[in-house]
């Protein structure tokens, strides 16, 4: 029976938690949070496809895998890290969920700004960390948030104090180094932008080595009044990786958060992106681009909640699917009573480059205020034959023409990326990935 299956799958996590709980960081509140989360995970277990939120994403391969739940950090050197370390950034590196201070670089960090390991921050009694961790990402209905909340070993705290504009992006590199027994880790990221502050953060997820693993991060962003946060996520893990992430945004009055989530790696990838626009005058721009091939699955579950009036949210997601890859885009916009003058716009576009690729796009608007503007649109299509012919008629070969148009499809996301290192990385990836990429490189 399925209940036995659930408890079978859950048991190793409960055992690991019992074993580890003494050494997991956090004061009273965080410890209590962990306990509650573990208990909740025990109750709900892994989701199955009969649940609405997991209808198209079967996580049973994760539930079935026996993970090493407290993998060691391993030892990496600067050369291993080179492909992921961007110049002109404050850098923090996590390896298998452990902070790697020797690979990090925080030189020149302005005083008063915190960019540090989360465990260390809690250990040193950081009030902000102790107060805010787990306050925003709710675990009750989300088993993977529950797992992360219970089991996270380390992560990152970014806190930019009132009025400070952080001069360089924070580059967070989360590496998995699988090999041998599959491993799982649960990085925790907390970003606090205090009143009228401004910061840019880039989360990178990557793999060194081969083998199964699960990376299961939770990132919470708290944008205080009038703050500006520019967030990027680059998920480029190996094709043996499971990646199940939750990104939780809490926005206070007049704050402005923009996020670009780029995903081309992983075997099974699930991203929950939740934004709560709690104060008046907020703006949230949530964009994404995913490229999947082979048997890859990428699932974006968006939930934007307009709680206060006069807030704008704009979502633009684009997907490029090849092989028998699948994508899911579930876009929920929830407008609370009283959130008048909401302007919410959601667009999802998918480009299918093969016959076997499949996408599910599902907009869900729940509107309980009457003076609002909410629009959504989703398209699924192939490359335009007329455009291919037009390019070929000018001497461009067929493959190059297809690649050019594919690039062009992605271009409006690429162009929105304001961190040159990230933008360049994505462009380079596209030139590598697309057939005749050298011609595309010339032509764009």
């Amino acid at each position, binding site marked *: 029976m399925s209940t036995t299956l659930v408890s079978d799958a859950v048991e190793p996590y409960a055992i690991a938690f019992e074993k580890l709980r003494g050494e997991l960081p956090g004061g009273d509140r965080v410890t209590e949070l962990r306990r509650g989360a573990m208990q909740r995970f025990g109750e709900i277990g892994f989701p199955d496809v009969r649940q609405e939120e997991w209808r198209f994403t079967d996580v049973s391969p994760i539930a079935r895998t026996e993970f090493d739940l407290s993998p060691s950090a391993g030892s990496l050197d600067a050369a291993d890290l080179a492909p992921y370390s961007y110049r002109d950034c404050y850098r923090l590196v996590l390896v298998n969920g452990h902070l790697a201070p020797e690979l990090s670089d925080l030189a020149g960090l302005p005083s008063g700004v915190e960019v540090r390991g989360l465990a260390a921050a809690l250990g040193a009694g950081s009030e902000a960390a102790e107060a805010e961790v787990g306050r925003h990402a709710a675990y009750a209905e989300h088993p993977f948030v529950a797992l992360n909340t219970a089991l996270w070993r380390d992560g990152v705290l970014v806190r930019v104090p009132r009025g400070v504009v952080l001069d360089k992006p924070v580059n967070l590199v989360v590496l998995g180094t699988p090999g041998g027994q599959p491993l799982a880790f649960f990085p925790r990221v907390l970003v606090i932008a205090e009143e009228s502050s401004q910061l840019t953060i880039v989360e990178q997820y990557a793999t060194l080595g081969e083998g199964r693993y699960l990376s299961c991060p939770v990132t919470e962003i708290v944008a205080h009044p009038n703050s500006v946060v520019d967030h990027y996520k680059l998920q480029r893990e190996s094709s043996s990786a499971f990646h199940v992430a939750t990104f939780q945004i809490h926005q206070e009055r007049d704050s402005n958060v923009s996020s670009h989530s780029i995903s081309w790696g992983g075997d099974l990838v699930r991203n929950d992106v939740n934004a709560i626009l709690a104060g008046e005058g907020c703006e949230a721009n949530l964009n994404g681009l995913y490229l999947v091939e082979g048997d890859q699955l990428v699932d974006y579950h968006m939930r934007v909640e307009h709680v206060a009036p006069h807030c704008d949210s704009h979502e633009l997601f684009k997907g490029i699917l090849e092989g028998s890859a699948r994508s899911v885009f579930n876009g929920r916009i929830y407008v609370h009573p009283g959130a008048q003058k909401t302007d919410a716009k959601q667009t999802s576009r998918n480009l299918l480059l093969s016959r076997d690729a499949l996408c599910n796009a599902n907009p869900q608007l729940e509107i309980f205020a009457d003076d609002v503007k909410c629009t959504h649109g989703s398209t699924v299509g192939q490359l335009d034959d007329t455009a291919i012919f037009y390019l*070929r*008629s*000018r*001497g*461009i070969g067929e493959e*190059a023409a297809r690649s050019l*148009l594919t690039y062009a499809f992605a*271009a409006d996301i690429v162009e929105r990326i304001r961190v040159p290192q990230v933008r360049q990385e994505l462009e380079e990836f596209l030139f590598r990935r697309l057939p005749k990429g050298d*011609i595309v490189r010339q*032509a764009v």
Partner: protein
Amino acid sequence: MSLLEIKNLYARAEEQEILKGVDLTVEPGQVHAIMGPNGSGKSTLARVLAGDAVYEVTDGQALYKGQDLLDMDPEVRAREGLFLAFQYPVEIPGVSNVYFLKAALNAIRKHREEPEMDAMEFLAYVREKMKLVKMEESLLQRPVNDGFSGGEKKRNEIFHMATLDPVLAVLDETDSGLDIDALKIVADGVNSLRDDKRSFVVITHYQRLLNFIVPDVVHVMVDGRIARTGGKELALELEERGYSWLEQKVATGAAAPVEA
């Protein structure tokens, strides 16, 4: 050798027969005009020549420089010097007009075993061509045809043509909808490229264009066939009399075998 020799060409799309035995021969250095009523198959002929896979050739042949044109991929035709200016140029957001042209030109040069142009050379080269069609610099940097006005699109086609330096250029209604200034720019562009080797096939509805681009030969296409061929005075006659007298001729001609 003729530059282009079309014999008894039949083509169809979606079960509909469109070209029904086209014969047309173009010598090097000539300008041919093709006129004819809406839906008679002019664009279809142009697109079949350029290699649009939407159309299926069911009979006949087309020789280009003595080679089987219909056997070549569209990009090979372009690299061999065939150019089609589209009746409805396609908007391609995300691909810059100038970089795209550079990639196209280099693909053509590579095919001709000429060295590729680097960015500096290309820019100098392209500036010359821009003058020819009075293109604004801003249209270079924008994505291909994206948000261009009708006139800008047509001019961009001529600009592409001038840059890619074709041997045979087919212009499909490049004059339609243009004001007189834009029309002159297009015509000047074509005229400046005329020489004893390069040929043009100019599809148009309006004899006005032919005041500026004076053709050597004028054809009238009716119902998928060349119904009449003459000198430039034929265009004037068409302007006066319309097409109906030719359409009737074709109708009776087509009816004849059925009656027999």
